[in-house]
Structure formats: structure tokens, C-alpha cells
């Protein structure tokens, strides 16, 4: 499946209606300080095939960082 840009509204819908998985890719310390409720942490530098193997591929996966960048 190809990645798609979505906004906050669609992210909320996917979380509520489709049980989406939410992944923060910022450094671990930033995640620990503050993250979107329910998000898991996979820092970008550790985003390997092994790291994502445990993610449920039957659910939408939403990846975010701090802003648009």
C-alpha cells in the first residue's frame, strides 16, 4: 500500500473507526516528554524492517513527527 498524506481530521477518523495504529517517529526522549495519546514510538533512526514487523498490517498505520516536515 502506498503512503498517503492525511490531516488531523482523517487521522481521528481512522483511529476511532478503523482502529488505526499511531506511530511517532521523533527521538525517544521527545516521545516520552509528549506524544499523541495512544501513540507508539519508533524513532526514525530505528525505523527498520525489523522494527515495523510487529505492526498489525490489517489496520491503517499513521506515522507522524512534530509538524509538516
Amino acid at each position, binding site marked *: 500500500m502506498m503512503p498517503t498524506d492525511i490531516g*488531523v481530521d482523517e487521522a481521528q477518523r481512522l483511529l476511532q473507526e478503523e482502529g488505526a495504529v499511531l506511530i511517532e517517529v521523533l527521538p525517544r526522549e521527545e516521545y516520552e*516528554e509528549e506524544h499523541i495519546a495512544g501513540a507508539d514510538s519508533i524513532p526514525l533512526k530505528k525505523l527498520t524492517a525489523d522494527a515495523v514487523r510487529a505492526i498489525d498490517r490489517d489496520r491503517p498505520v499513521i*506515522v507522524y513527527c512534530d509538524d*509538516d516536515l
Partner: protein
Amino acid sequence: MVGGKSEWRELGLPMEGTGPFRYVAGQVLKPVAACGLDATAGDVREMLRSSPVCVVVNDHGVVQGRVRPKDLPAEDDTSVSDFMQLGPATVQRREELSGLVQRMQNKGVRTILVTTPKGELLGMIDRSDAERFLAEAPTRDA
């Protein structure tokens, strides 16, 4: 997700973590002079009489540039777009205050602009105000 954690936070949606933090928002965020892209050097010169910086915004309030007194040309009819400094550094209002002040100190920055995640101007942080605030009330939230 476009907008990321910042937009989520700005919208007041649920967050978790080890906070709370003393954010840029609140008592240390103050107004800053702003003008449109159609302003002239004369307009900006007048605004800089009461503000250390004049921010140039587009029709949507999004920051386009910044003018300090040293950037002003001699001719009052020069368009601001010809002398403004493009792409000034900005922070968002939910940025943690003490970390921001530390970075400003390290880089010798005296003021910084505060915007929404979409780049809309909210105001300005004066480092000396923030330093005073942190020194006077080390445990309260900004």
C-alpha cells in the same frame, strides 16, 4: 500525518507524556508590529518606533519575512518585499520555554517569532522577558 504532533496539540486533542512544561504561550508572548507585503519602508519605519522588529505577513497572516531597523533602506517608498529578511526563525506557542531560552542564549538571539503550526503570526518572545519570568517563578507554568 500532515501537521503532526504540533497541530494535534494546538487543537487541544489528547496528549500523553511526562510534562507539564512551561510553554511559550502565556505571559511571555507579546504582540509584535506587523505589516502586509504592500507596505513601504516609510510604513515600516513608523512601526519600528514602537517595536524592535516588524513582521511581514501575507493576506492569511502567515509570516513571510522580518525587518529590523538595520534592514531599512534610506528611501521611504521602497517596497518591504525588497528589503525584508526572508524566512525568519519561528517557534510555536506550545514550545517548552526553558529549552527555548537556552537555545536563544546559545545562539545570541534576543527575540523570536511565535506562530501557529501553519505559520500564522501569534506574537514574539523577548528573551529578557522569558529569562525574567523563569527566574521569578521557576515552578509555575507560562
